[in-house]
């Protein structure tokens, strides 16, 4: 992976730390490493959806574990981003049942409409299109994940509307 020299401003707010401490309390004394995945989600959500090395180091410090224990987890799981992503990431499910329902054509349509290729954000950083593996919504295909939520039974018209809603700031990405 390309390592980008982009600085990320770290801001561990009071409400974020409260949530992190609550998550740590879900595990027995000394087993705080178990909170790593939920904590990474919270931290990533609060930092423009990506985790720089500095931010990962911060998480290691909070959980009293070695930085490498964070790096190896962040690089294993697909939901953790090691570089900045488009603000509105359209993650289309591209596994068989969605393909049977036309997701490939819909992805082409979305890329054309936004003038991008899969995996490349728009120049303004607003949108990005990616293909991902089965999201567990096969009966509601074609579909995509946008932030914490699923957009199902997609059509070209629904994609058009979603793009408008994103631009108008009407889409909630994270449920906090």
């Amino acid at each position, binding site marked *: 992976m390309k390592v980008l020299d982009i600085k990320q401003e770290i801001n561990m707010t009071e409400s974020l730390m409260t949530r992190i401490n609550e998550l740590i309390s879900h595990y027995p004394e000394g087993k705080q490493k*178990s909170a790593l995945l*939920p904590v990474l989600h919270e931290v990533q959500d609060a930092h423009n959806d990506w985790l720089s090395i500095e931010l990962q180091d911060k998480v290691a410090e909070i959980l009293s574990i070695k930085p490498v224990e964070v790096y190896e*987890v962040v690089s294993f799981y697909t939901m953790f981003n090691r570089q900045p992503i488009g603000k509105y990431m359209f993650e289309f499910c591209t*596994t*068989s049942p969605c393909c*049977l329902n036309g997701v490939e054509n819909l992805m082409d349509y979305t890329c054309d409409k936004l003038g991008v290729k899969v995996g490349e954000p728009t120049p303004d950083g607003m949108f990005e299109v990616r293909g991902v*593996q*089965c999201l567990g919504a*096969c009966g509601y295909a074609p579909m995509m994940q946008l932030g*914490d939520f699923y957009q199902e039974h997609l059509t070209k018209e629904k994609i058009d509307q979603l793009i408008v809603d994103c631009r108008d700031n009407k889409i909630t990405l994270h449920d906090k």
Partner: protein
Amino acid sequence: MSQKILLDKINVPGIKTYEVYRREGGYASVEKAIKTLTPDEVVEEVKTSGLRGRGGAGFPAGMKWSFIDKKSGKPRHLVCNADESEPGTFKDRFLMEHLPHLLIEGMITSSYALGANLSYIYIRGEYMWVYKILERAIAEAKAAGWLGKNILGSGYDLELYVQIGGGAYICGEETALIESLEGKRGNPRIKPPFPAISGLWSNPTVVNNVETIAAVPWIINNSGADYAKIGIGRSTGTKLISASGHVKNQGVYEIELGLSVYEFMNSDEYLGGMIDSRPLKAFVPGGSSVPVLPANLIYKTANGDDRLMTYESLSDGGFATGSMLGSGGFIVYNDTACIVRNTWNFARFYAHESCGQCSPCREGTGWLEKVLWRIENGQGREEDIDLLWSIQSKIEGNTICPLGDAAAWPVAAAIRHFRDEFEYHVRFPEKIKNREHFVAEPFEKVKHLVSKQTV
């Protein structure tokens, strides 16, 4: 109408909320178990019910519970596997989204049976909004006194939390799930020791699927014997089936095990037949990892018996002519679907999801994907088909977890039943250039070309 035991209240308005769920008789199994049954009696009821693990493997749940180490005196844990990621499977999500308290009730009753005082629900990261639903439902249950210290004055304590994953299919394998719950990469562990002896933080642990745990309240409220009356033979009770693909009514259904595949596919109560009445070409009955079957083996077994929705009937004939009930991820294909493309699609999935720990799976899944891709894109060679067969046979059985088998089986089944379609791709590359090649011209119409062509 068949009997519903999981989704019987699904249409009650507000059933998601604690108040309505409780008013409708929710949490009765917790009361009954804690006040009138010993933990071992709860285990016995579940054994009697014949309930089998609903995640895919179908191992008897009561038996799994009875293996948990109670002698060492270590803390015990129940972990619910809500990492539903098998392509074609979306039943657990449906249950958790609409009936969160049913799962929580099942977790409490089951934790009591196992003597677990700290339990977890591990849910896949992409189901973030369901994670929030469960967290809020757990808070409601706790406020109402069903969780915490001294539940119902019995002296039994239980804390229950939801843990969110990070997007990795492999974490649905129980030992990988435990690793992930410990804050690590999802690399499966070598068994033995089994989790029942050494699981979460080396403590005795039982991992059960969402649907398995959700069946426990009914079994305790009624009886294991009543549950065993539903279904046929060793396939007792009901099963959630998530149906997708080229059928009219895609969605989640609760069926009594023993229903015929024909009725499930065609009756209006269930899938209502094929979209646009196009011919049925193939189906995958239990999630992407189970063998795909061609049309002539779907409604009837090779012996000519009716194919039923049971563990036994769907696997009748072994892999030569049968498949598996698996997770209940029921994917249907009509004549416009390309088996080669679909097999490539699944192979890509497994190549992406292999954890990389075992060489046969790490390397083999990548090979399968690449070779299938070149066949699907008109660059295949005649010997590629045998190469695929060879690769899959070297993965199967040679990995420490079942992901390797799961990657191998769909490829083997596709070649076994649809070899001529692979040959067509290799011999007529110009006819498959468009990715929707069988939409314009279904394989049935061009099949004759394969046999005429000599190599």
